[in-house]
């Protein structure tokens, strides 16, 4: 029996970053429009509003497709991440359209944490600007698997190979400085559609893929995590239905399930098979997997990022917040660690304050022991700092009330990411990644 549904396309998540002037909305609109993701009534609504705003007949203000809030349309700005959906024969896409204004770094961080790829828009006439560097720096810190620099408005620089080569070289230099190793640079015209869905006849000197072609073929982060990392499963809850079995289970089966007990969670990396030896953090007790349900159905094996429940060969004292790992790979529990924080809340983060840290399914009390430095996104250097303000990225030391199985973000996006939460009002203060 297999857990896999119909073998259609896989899912790919990407985010776009860039300012309004770079043509980001036009690019998003073009992608949606050319992949036929915009339906007639949506287009009609956009056309009507575009005409009201003085756009020439037949021209669309594509920003209207993603600026969903009244305030956004009134002020002509994008406030919040908007999610859009489209699919091609090869894949389904979830697009997080992130505002590019510097004061909205939090949205950029939001989009980048779940993205398999980020597209950074650059105006081909202006080249790599300070803002491009900032976007690339955030993307590099968050280790987005694939980075695409779309050099836009190639039509306005005469489809010039030399002009493109200049911008591409600038982008590659910044990426190298930041340690981005998976970089793709594409010459595009979002307005006219060159190299968006199909390869353009007007850039014969470019022999790489069109943007959509690239998005259809890059491996998703899930695939990478499932193949390269050992099993990790944060325990969400323990299922123990006892008398509360679902109706309709036949009596013999109900008898077999009388003592059913399983840990439920979503596999964050790796593969698990019936018969595998696993260990549990905390405590380190070892056991064997005797049964797996993926989305409720019994299976022999499951992989990241499936939601499963695991039965073990003996009762293990475990609860929400625990971590099931492949035997021999238990992370060391840590009470004090260095992190990079993205300060997202409007309040200032100061040394000594008490917070909550949510890591996997565990939430523990913590103290900001020390703030070491702030990352200067323009100079790409760290400068000494005592506090972190909104949109600052900084290095801090955190002290925890209980051990957590922290792993460096560089080797595990799941094991190395956490939220910093205000202990009384519950606001998310910062996004954090474990440094080493």
């Amino acid at each position: 029996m297999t857990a896999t549904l119909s073998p259609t396309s896989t899912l790919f998540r990407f985010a776009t970053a860039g300012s309004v002037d770079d043509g980001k909305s036009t690019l998003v609109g073009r992608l949606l429009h050319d992949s036929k993701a915009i339906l007639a009534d949506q287009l009609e609504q956009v056309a009507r509003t575009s005409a009201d705003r003085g756009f020439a007949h037949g021209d669309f203000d594509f920003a209207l497709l993603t600026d969903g809030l009244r305030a956004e349309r009134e002020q002509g700005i994008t406030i919040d991440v908007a999610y859009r959906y489209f699919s091609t024969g090869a894949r389904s896409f979830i697009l997080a359209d992130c505002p590019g204004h510097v004061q909205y770094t939090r949205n950029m961080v939001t989009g980048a944490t779940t993205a398999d790829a980020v597209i950074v828009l650059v105006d081909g006439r202006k080249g790599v600007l300070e803002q491009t560097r900032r976007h690339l720096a955030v993307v590099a810190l968050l280790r987005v698997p694939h980075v695409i620099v779309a050099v836009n408005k190639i039509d306005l620089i005469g489809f010039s190979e030399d002009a493109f080569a200049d911008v591409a070289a600038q982008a590659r230099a910044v990426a190298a400085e930041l340690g981005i190793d998976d970089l793709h640079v594409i010459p595009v015209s979002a307005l006219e559609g060159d190299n968006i869905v199909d390869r353009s006849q007007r850039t014969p000197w470019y022999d790489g893929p069109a943007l959509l072609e690239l998005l259809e073929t890059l491996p998703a982060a899930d695939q990478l995590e499932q193949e390269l990392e050992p099993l990790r499963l944060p325990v969400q809850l323990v299922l123990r239905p006892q008398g509360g079995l679902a109706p309709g289970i036949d009596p013999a089966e109900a008898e077999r399930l009388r003592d059913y007990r399983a840990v439920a969670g979503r596999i964050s990396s790796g593969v698990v098979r019936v018969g595998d030896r696993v260990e549990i953090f905390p405590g380190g007790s070892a056991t064997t997997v005797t049964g797996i349900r993926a989305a409720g159905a019994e299976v022999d094996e499951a992989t990241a990022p499936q939601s499963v429940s695991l039965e073990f060969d003996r009762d293990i004292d475990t609860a929400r917040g625990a971590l099931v790992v492949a035997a021999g790979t238990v992370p060391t529990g840590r009470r004090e660690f260095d992190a990079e924080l993205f300060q997202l809340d409007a309040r200032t983060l100061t040394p000594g304050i008490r917070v909550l840290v949510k890591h996997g399914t565990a939430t523990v009390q913590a103290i900001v022991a020390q703030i070491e430095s702030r990352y200067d996104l323009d100079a790409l250097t760290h400068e000494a700092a005592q506090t972190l303000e909104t949109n600052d990225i900084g290095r801090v030391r955190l002290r925890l009330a209980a051990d957590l199985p922290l792993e460096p973000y560089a080797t595990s996006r799941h094991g190395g990411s956490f939220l910093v939460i205000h202990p009384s009002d519950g606001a998310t203060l910062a996004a954090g990644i474990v440094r080493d």
Partner: protein
Amino acid sequence: MTDTITAPATALSTLDLLEAEAIHVIREVVAEFERPVLLFSGGKDSVVVLHLATKAFAPGRVPFPVLHVDTGHNFPEVIAFRDETVERLGIRLEVARVQDYIDDGRLQERADGTRNPLQTLPLLDAIAAGRHDAVFGGARRDEDKARAKERIISLRDEFGQWDPRNQRPELWSLYNGRHTPGQHVRAFPISNWTELDVWRYIEHEGIALPPLYFAHERDVYARDGMWRPVGPFSPPRENETVERRTVRYRTVGDMSCTGAVESDAADLAAIVAEVAVSTLTERGATRADDRLSEAAMEDRKKDGYF
């Protein structure tokens, strides 16, 4: 021992991945909240969320009740389906009735006769009465531009209000559902599903739906470019001609605001094929309530609507 890890041969499909995400969300909410409830209308999206909940807790039963805000204008077939479903799954049904509020004067019937906007008050009262700190819904981000900006776990104040400019950032797959007394969250496990994903999933899983979704003959009349049903809450006006046509519903709301589309799609495979080539969104095609203005959904959500 486990040093070498080989990937399984079968790649996960889009539906597998969406299902895994939805079950993760449902389990997070059940683990972190005391008294969750699912808004269940009998419409396809809430049916899918309930189905996902059965899978999340199998072989146990769904560990939370469902809540239906009954406008009094529901299709009788949908009410019957609702009752059969909760009976079959052995879960508790809570019902908040708009009619009760109209009868005792807490709400006034609207001039246009639609009751969809009247649901908010009974909903908020039912959430408070049930002391529900988390409310699951079947909303999807592809439905509407305002919904495209809503979080999967979305905080509401004690008036049920959504503050779109002050939402918590949604990072990795770490959901922050912490709240203070009086606040609750709305949880949308199928936020990232499209209409076509929902139909493909229903087909794959063989999920039962109210018969309205399938092509059937019905007395209808044309209004605002949709086929409206002839019924006690939606009589035709004098100049509107009643015809018998083969129609089906793409969304199931009130009789007074939901239109049907002409269709011969009588089974799930035919519906999937029809939705895949549709050139209209489901709300644009069938919901009069969303045509009120470009920000109709945003305004209702801010007031505590689903």
